[in-house]
Every structure is written in C-alpha cells, then in structure tokens.
C-alpha cells in the first residue's frame, strides 16, 4: 500500500514537471510581452515595473487586425467546404453499399500520404493560369482538398457505427436520401463534426507554406505570414512582436480548452475500436 502511494506521488510529480516544461516558455513570453523594450534588454527574467498592456494594443493596431480578419475569412470558408465535401463523401461511401466504394475510399485516403510540398510548384502554376493566384480562393481551394482525406477517414468510421434501423424507419416515413442525411446522420454525428472542425481549423488557421506562396499582397495575408512580415517591419521592437505572437496563438488555444471534452469524445467514437 505504501509503495503504491509513493509511486503515485512520483508519477504525478513527473506530470507536473512535464507541464512546467510546456508552460514555462509560454509564461516567459507573456511576461516579456508586458514589459518595455528597455526592461526586456536589462533582464528577461525579471518582472515588469508596470504591466504594459499597450504592447498588445500596439500589436493589434500595427496590422495584426487585418491578418486576423483574413485568417477568419480563409479558415471559415475552408472549414465549411471541408465539412460539407467530406461528410457528403463519407455518407456516399458508407450508407449505400455502392459498388467500388472500397477503391474510392482508398484513393481518397491515399491523398493523406501526398504532401503539400510535392504539389506546390504545379499548384502555383495552375493557380496563376486560372487567375486565382493572390486571391482568397488560392488558399481556400487547396486547403479544402488537402483536408478532405483525413476528415473522410474520421467521419467514415463514425458513420459506419450508426445503426441501419434509424435509416429504415426514415425511409418508411418517406424521407429521401438527402433528408436522411440532414435530419438523421448529421444530428447524430455532431461529436465527430466537432472533432473534425477542431483538427481542420487548427491546420488551416496555422498553415504557412501555401499561404506564403499563393498570397502575395499584404491585404490578403493570414496570421502566420503576417507574423513573419511583422518580424521584418518591427525590427528591434521585441515586446510588440511578442505580444503579436501571443494574440495570434490565443484563438485556437481558447477554442480547444472550451471544446476539449467534445473533441476527445468525438475522436474516441470515431477511432478504430481495439
């Protein structure tokens, strides 16, 4: 019994140390974003004389608000596209016993193994040729396409687990396949939609490679690119830069902490059962 208690304390102490390794660098960033540049240069470990919340306001007004708006537009549209295309695809794959759906699923899943780098140059040429280069569409369309495989993978295993009887009852009521989808499948599948939304949003909100190459004008830039230009624009204004990094990171962290229960539940329900 005593050995058990000691082990328990040791293990949880280990968890606390790991948590500190994760949290301390972030705490240090927040601390320094609330200092003046002089204070930062003097000692980056010391507390600020008075917290400078104006650094955060400066960062926001220096252009971060524009990047934020762009990220909202791009992420929002991509997310809607990803969820609609993927849920349709997963529905078609799972609920009809359609011929060839096994092969179609494999082809779609194969897209997971193809990385953005390999498609980068041709996509760039393609987007230029159809004059979508340097528009929101230049990132939205590839974002949707590249997220479909993984989202279909998650949704498919969830849809398969929905009992057939529910659909049969709906057919008796005279529902067509689209009504079954919107009135039965989608409401039951809310947890997996929530999980997919978080996974995709996290990816799209933070994507750098495509956004960096396909968006040229500052007016269209999303947050990750904006932060890199921030670095150039602000040069030695470190504290504003730090504040910008923090503002840029907050939305996803807050969203996750609010939804972490649903997120894990959706993933657990969708995952392969052992």
């Amino acid at each position, binding site marked *: 019994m005593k050995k058990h208690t000691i082990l328990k304390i040791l293990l949880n102490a280990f968890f606390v140390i790991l948590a500190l390794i994760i949290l301390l660098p972030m705490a240090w960033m927040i601390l320094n974003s609330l200092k003046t540049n002089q204070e930062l240069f003097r000692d980056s470990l010391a507390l600020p004389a008075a917290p400078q919340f104006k650094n955060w306001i400066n960062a926001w007004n220096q252009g971060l608000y524009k990047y934020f708006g762009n990220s909202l537009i791009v992420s929002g549209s991509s997310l809607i596209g990803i969820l609609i295309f993927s849920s349709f695809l997963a529905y*078609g794959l799972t609920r009809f016993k359609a011929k060839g759906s096994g092969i179609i699923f494999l082809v779609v899943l194969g897209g997971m193994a193809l990385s953005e780098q390999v498609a980068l140059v041709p996509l760039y040429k393609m987007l230029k040729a159809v004059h979508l280069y340097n528009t929101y569409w230049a990132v939205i369309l590839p974002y949707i396409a590249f997220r479909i495989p993984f989202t279909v993978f998650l949704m498919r295993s969830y849809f398969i687990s929905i009992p057939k009887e529910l659909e049969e009852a709906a057919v008796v009521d005279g529902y067509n396949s689209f009504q079954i989808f919107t009135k039965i499948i989608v409401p039951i599948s809310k947890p997996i939609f929530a999980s997919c939304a978080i996974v995709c949003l996290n990816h799209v909100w933070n994507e750098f490679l495509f956004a960096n190459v396909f968006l040229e004008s500052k007016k269209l830039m999303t947050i990750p690119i904006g932060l890199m230009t921030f670095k150039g624009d602000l040069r030695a204004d470190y504290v504003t830069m730090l504040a910008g990094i923090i503002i840029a990171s907050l939305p996803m962290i807050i969203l996750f902490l609010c939804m972490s229960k649903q997120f894990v539940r959706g993933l657990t329900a969708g995952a392969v059962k052992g």
Partner: protein
Amino acid sequence: MRTKKTTPYLYMLPGCAMVLVFVYIPVIANCVYSFFRLSSYSAGMKFVGLDNYIRFFHNESLGIMLRNNLLYCVISLIVQVGFGTVIALLLESKLASSRFRNAFRNIYYIPALISLTAVGLMFTFIYEPNLGLLNSAFKALGLTSMTQSWLGDSKIAIYCIIAMSQWQYTGYITLLMVVAFQNVSPDYIEAASIDGAGPVRRAISVVLPLAKEQLLVCSIITVIGAFKLFTEVYSTTAGGPGNSTQVLGLFLYQNAFLHDDLGMAAVTGVFIFVITMVLSVIQLKVSRSGEV
C-alpha cells in the same frame, strides 16, 4: 433503401473531384515537371531529360539535407511517438491523478495549437544568446559555461530546431494515443489481471497491441512530417548558419521561389514523395508482419 444507382456517387463526386484536381493532378504534374526546365514567370518549358535529376544528386547540400531530415525523423520517432506513447499510457494508468489527468493531457496538447511560425519566432527568442530564456536561465543559475549561441552555432542549430518540434508535438501524439487507449475494452485488461499480469505486463501485452493501428498512424504521420519539414527551419534559421540546417522542404522552396529553378524544385518534390512512400510502405509491412 430505394435510391437510384447513381445517388451514392453524386454524394462522393464533389469531394473526389476536389482531391483529384488539387492533390493528385498537381502531384502527377510535379513528376512531369521534373523532366523539364521551366520558370515561374513564363509558360514555356523545355524537355531536359534527366538533367534536373543529375544536378539534384550532384548537389553538395544533398548530404546535409538527408542527414538533417533523418536526424529529425529518428529523434521525433523516439521522443514524440516513443515517449509520447509512454506518457499516454501513464496518463491512462490507475496511478495518475483522476482529477488532473485531463488537465495534464490538455496542457501537453497546447503547443500543437500554436502556429509553426509563432513557435519558430518564440524559440528564436528563447535561443537568443543575449536576452533569451535559455542563456538567461543558465546565467541566473550560475552555469555560465552552459550558455551557447544556440541557433547561431552550426554544430547545434539543427538540434535546437528538432528540440523545438519535440516541445510542440509530443503532446499531440500523446493525445492521439490516449484516445486509442480509451477505446481498449476494459474486459481485456480485467481478463489479463485475473491471469495475474501486473500493470507493466498488461500495458505491453494487452493495451499496446490493441492500439497498434493508432500507433502505426502516429509513426507514419511523424515520418512524413520529418521529410516535409519546412516552416520550422524557414522561421528560425532559414537554413543557416552556412548550410548547416538545410532540409529538403526548404531546398524545394528556395529553388522554386528564390532561384526560379522550378525543375530542380520538382525533382526535390519527387524525391520527398518517393522517400515518404517507401518509408510508409515499410512501416505498414513491419506492422503486418507481427500479425499471426
């Protein structure tokens, strides 16, 4: 259900079309491009046979890139997949505090929610020789001899970048594995304890094998990630000092958009594609070979 034969395919069509047009066709086009000389600014292209491939394999930074990508891959497999899975097992064990285990799991996952550029800029500060967190902490502890120029030292810069990624993604794998472990039916575990298996024994011979598929997914994601590595390097050292942190993904980007050598970029793309494919197939084969 009475539906037309075409109905399911109509549901599948839009998604499939998106994947074909924006994923498969560009990847195929990339293979074609690798045999041509072409530029971003003009539409013309000239067939050059294997010339791009010859230039790629004679490139002096190829060795450095391969070494860096491989280092990243091996260390990430050990730390993220290996250690990440161990943390997940411990979090799901009876010894973990039931009140705080979800909080720990969420904290470990937070870095994966921050954009790569933000993490890159953040660690540029942390590694900064004069005012960065690392050197300041060493000085405050009186360990002045431990201070380094970190990203400025060509011998250790790549390790600094790799360390940053471990900080960011270990918790991500932990979360994925926790999900898998929660799906292992408690009946199996109970049966094993009735047979007299201790907690370590149960973890190794019951829980892990039942979560094998998820483990495979995690290690494939990690290996693919290691060979498409780009933003982490771009936002910290941009390949320097010298050429010491050059990686395949960055080389591709620089050739395409700095040197306007799209053919060379395409070859690099093909190379990344072949490596990730081969490694994924090997992992699938290895995981199957264990099956009876």
